[in-house]
């Protein structure tokens, strides 16, 4: 009964996966062997991500509703939201493992510099508040579109993006250069290594989040979201809040303790 399938199978094929995989592999090969390859890889990654986002914007892979499904448990969850939460489990484990590694090397060390001497606590606190505010903006964006307020959605998303970008600019443009000038670098010893690796990975996650929020902004301006169709806003919001939660631990672990 081929009328089961309103979409033909043709809709479902895409070159984006092989392109993205090839780009990442090229990038990794490049950073070991020959740097221009890594640049080429980054370009391919960009092209693949663009393709993914474009397909999303054109809703080419919008899910066929399987009307009769077994849903227990978690009946009220759409599959993307469940997918995001499962993904967050893996994120909790990777950041958790790195924090355990930090605790391990720190507790094994007989001497560890006082946090206030190596870190600018006030700047860190300000940055923490900036990230918290971007989370607020994100959740208010969701609240707005739930109520059908497209303008509120745009303002919320733009604010979240701006605040997240500010967080990164302060971290990468102000804090890190300052620490490097003071001799607190990634290779200056375990205190520096742990700080830069952990906050560096966190910064990469913030950057990825900014790309995702940028996609949401683009879609919100082209009318892609309504009061009933906005799951991407919620799902990317879940990821954004998670990135904030990780920082809730990284800030005291490195700046205060």
């Amino acid at each position: 009964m081929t009328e089961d399938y309103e979409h033909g199978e043709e809709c479902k094929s895409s070159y984006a996966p092989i392109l993205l995989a090839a780009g990442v592999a090229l990038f990794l090969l490049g950073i070991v062997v020959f740097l221009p390859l890594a640049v080429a890889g980054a370009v391919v990654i960009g092209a693949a991500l663009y393709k993914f986002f474009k397909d999303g914007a054109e809703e080419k892979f919008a899910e066929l509703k399987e009307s009769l499904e077994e849903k227990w448990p978690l009946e009220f969850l759409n599959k993307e939201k469940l997918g995001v939460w499962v993904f967050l489990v893996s994120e909790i484990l990777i950041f958790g493992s790195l924090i355990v590694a930090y605790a391990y090397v720190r507790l094994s060390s007989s001497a560890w510099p006082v946090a206030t001497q190596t870190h600018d606590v006030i700047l860190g606190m300000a940055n923490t508040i900036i990230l918290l505010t971007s989370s607020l903006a994100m959740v208010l964006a969701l609240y707005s579109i739930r109520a059908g307020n497209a303008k509120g959605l745009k303002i919320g998303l733009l604010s979240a993006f701006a605040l997240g970008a500010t967080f990164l600019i302060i971290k990468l443009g102000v804090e890190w250069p300052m620490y490097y000038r003071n001799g607190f670098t990634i290779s200056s010893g375990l205190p520096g290594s742990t700080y830069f690796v952990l906050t560096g990975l966190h910064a990469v996650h913030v950057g990825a989040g900014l790309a995702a929020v940028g996609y949401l902004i683009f879609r919100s301006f082209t009318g892609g979201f309504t009061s009933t169709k906005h799951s991407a806003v919620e799902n990317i919001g879940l990821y954004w809040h998670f990135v904030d939660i990780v920082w809730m631990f990284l800030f005291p672990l490195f700046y205060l303790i």
Partner: protein
Amino acid sequence: MPGIKMYVGIWLGLVVATVAEVVTRSLAGAASLLALIILLISSGKAITIAMYYQHLRYEDKRLAILPIAAVIGVITLAVAAILSMSPGM
């Protein structure tokens, strides 16, 4: 589902908690005790964000099993790894 007032109120609480963490740092007391208090405040902040911004409070309770299981996994690794550090043969 929360309203704007609730979201902003939560944010205010989170900001205050952040300042409290910084202030705690400069209090007099054993370093490890202060560290414990600070981390308890951070955990509180994290749980608050999870419950109210990620809406875990309003979702099916069973969804929370996922992040809780992950945290238990991390705690298992942490406890075993750190306990194994102490000499004792």
